[in-house]
């Protein structure tokens, strides 16, 4: 179950970047997350082939192909179970999930709460732009209720929820928020998240400059948490309950029981099982 040890000490961020050109709009927040991930992996000295980046569908979910790691660009909302299967089958790999607010919290909401609860060792990055970028501007579960858009003229009227609060309630043991403009900040949190033995959630506020141009102002609104990381669930609950959604930092980090089983070496022969079936 242990994380692979760095075998190359000389990896640099650029060694994790593939030759595939991102389809992202110039200025998209997702670029910052990409580069932070490369920095974190380089810092950890993880050989690219030991890392698997798993995603769903969305602008954010395009990340895997832009890395030099193994990747799976699956279907919308289902990255977390896919990553779960991979990690249980291959505990030697470092598994990173790349998702978006639509992918993780709307269609993928069920897998999200169950991944939090199940606690399989992986890092889940949700690139939250409070909008569906890929399908050109519809509201997600984190979009404000009055955001006027074609599919919900005048706004949905539905209050956004706090994914971190939902994650905490669902049992996640590592909960953090970053801002895509702060690449080093995210990189540091990612290093800690990847090292964390369990399900680590990192929400990254990542402006969609095309469909939510007003999010360029996030740069002015984000602020680091003034409180240190807590390992106390009730305390974390209190803090997230009072949070304005623009605080960055690792809010909660606790030691929780890992999902117990993986695929291992056989401990019994198939013959023994077959024999039970004979009369």
């Amino acid at each position, binding site marked *: 179950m242990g994380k692979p040890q760095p075998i190359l000490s000389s990896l640099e961020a650029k060694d994790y970047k593939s030759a595939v050109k991102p389809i992202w709009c110039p200025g998209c927040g997702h670029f910052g997350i990409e580069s932070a991930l490369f920095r974190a992996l380089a810092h950890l000295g993880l*050989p690219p082939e030991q890392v698997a980046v798993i995603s769903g569908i969305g602008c954010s979910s395009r990340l895997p*192909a832009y890395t030099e790691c193994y990747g*799976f*660009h699956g279907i919308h909302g289902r990255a977390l179970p896919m990553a779960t*299967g*991979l990690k249980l089958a*291959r505990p030697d790999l470092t598994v990173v999930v790349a998702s978006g607010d639509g992918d993780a919290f709307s269609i993928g909401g069920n897998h999200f709460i169950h991944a939090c609860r199940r606690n399989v060792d992986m890092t889940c990055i949700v690139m939250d732009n409070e909008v569906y970028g890929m399908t050109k501007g519809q509201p997600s579960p984190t979009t404000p209720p009055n955001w006027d858009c074609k599919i919900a003229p005048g706004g949905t009227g539905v209050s956004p929820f706090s994914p971190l609060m939902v994650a905490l309630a669902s049992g996640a043991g590592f909960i953090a928020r970053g801002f895509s403009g702060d690449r080093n900040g995210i990189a540091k949190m990612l290093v800690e998240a990847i090292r964390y033995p369990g399900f680590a959630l990192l929400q990254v506020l990542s402006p969609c400059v095309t469909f939510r141009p007003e999010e360029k102002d996030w740069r002015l609104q984000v602020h680091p948490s003034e409180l240190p990381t807590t390992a106390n669930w009730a305390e974390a609950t209190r803090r997230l309950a009072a949070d304005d959604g623009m605080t960055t930092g690792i809010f909660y980090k606790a030691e929780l029981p890992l999902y117990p089983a993986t695929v291992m070496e056989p401990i019994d022969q*198939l013959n023994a099982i077959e024999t039970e079936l004979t*009369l």
Partner: protein
Amino acid sequence: MNTLVSPMDSVAVAIVGSGGAGSITAGSLLLEAAGRIGWYGLMTRSVGPQIRGGEALAMVRLAGAPVGSHGDHFDVLLALDWHNADRFVDEVPLNANSLILAEAEAGEPPAVIMASGARLVTLPLESLAEGVEEGRPNIVALGVLARLLALPLDELLIVASRALERKGLDVDLLQETLKTGYDAAEILDDSIRALPPAPARGTRWRLTGNEAAALGALRGGVRFAAVYPITPATDLSEWLAVRLQRVGGHLIQAEDEIAALNMVLGASYGGIPSLTVTSGPGLALMSETLGLAVAAEVPAVVVNVMRGGPSTGIPTKSEQSDLNMALYGLHGDAPHLVLAANTVSDCLSATQWAVQLAEALQCPAIVLSDQFLGQSQSVCEQPVDHDGLGVASRLVAVEPGSAGRYDRYALTDNGISPMALPGTPGGQYTADGLEHNAHGIPSSRAADHRAQLDKRRDKLLHYDYGPLWADVEGDGELAVVVWGSATGPVREAAARARAQGLAVKVLSLRLLFPVQPTRLSALLAGVQRVLVVEQSHSQQFYGYLKAHYALPGEIRVLNQPGPLPIRPAAVLTQLLQWR
């Protein structure tokens, strides 16, 4: 294959009783005892809608040759009581030669049951049981059946004492109870319906189709499973869970079916042969993810144990009506493997083969079983280890990228591209459900789309599936084409037809997709009339055959939805009428 030729070659016994009366236990013990001395057999249970308790029926058929159906009529209906027994009347056809053995105190048998003209004999099972300490009427009944079927009492005692030992029953008392029934059955000596001679001793297995499928998966190398419970597939998962643990694998219960199949794809992408298990509604939910497995070329096996449909339908009953969805239920042009098991023990081979094909062809495989196959207990020969059906193997890229860029989706001659497993240096690629070029980069170019569509089709078309693709029996100008659990009654009908001098060929397709039109045509050369048999309301199998095969000559279809099985006599009638 040795088959049942006349109804006299077998004995069919139905045991009915209300919740807790022990009809199912009695049926199982009867099956096991008979199996131990070399009989073949089949037992199917049927219960009312209550979650627990409620009326229950055990249908047991024993014979000197493999048993693939419950035949046309039951020789014996044994009623521990009549409470709601009339709900089973359709499932237990009786005729004037049948014998009804009923608890004397249970009152009048339901009129619909007596209408069969069967002879009724009542026995004081309960009071006989009361005469023995710890005595139970169902065990007394077993004693009665033992005499009626000339089954050695001591075999029954062995299986009963083993099965009931955890209930702390005393062996001597058990023996006494059995003996009480045996003795009481003296009045039935005119009706002795002895079993035909047992073919051989000691080679029998007892298993359900669900257990067989699980074992096939293990034999094929499956070491990871992710499932969501659903009737009638849950017992497959439950049986597999503990066995996977023993061989170092793992079964995880996912939050839903979509998660289950995505977990399977993740594990398989990591290099571990993986499977999920479901039934109709669950397969429907997996459809989108199956398409991903096709496009991203990830091996995966889905065992679908069919039940009555549509929608929630009749979860506890059998039907062959998920065929269409299994064949065509994916969006886009998404060629994949569809296999079907045609006997309880064939669930093993079909599943093992599916694992092998899925791995070899980097493609999802759906195995169609059904509630009848999955949940019936069969006493049968040790399932054959078919030639070449060993542990599956996948074409893995050993030193990917050593000779330049590694192309995950390289266009090879046979369409199969070596797959790099995560952890292998130089093989890094991104598996993708977006259309892509050979390297795996998303592409919407017509040429790339065409090349990958061709590749995904051709790898399935060019593979040599060998003789397992269909089971062929007999010869003649008249052929029956069938699949899945409908094969049992068809085989039996064909054997009887042959005994009556009618040459009949039976083709039971194990590989449903990709289709094998050339092979089928070769097998049907000279055939003038084709009878298609299936258990669906809308002739799904016939539609499939018309779409993909050229059937020769005149064609008739015998189709019937669940929940009742197709009976050999119905098939035989069709065959004989068509002379």
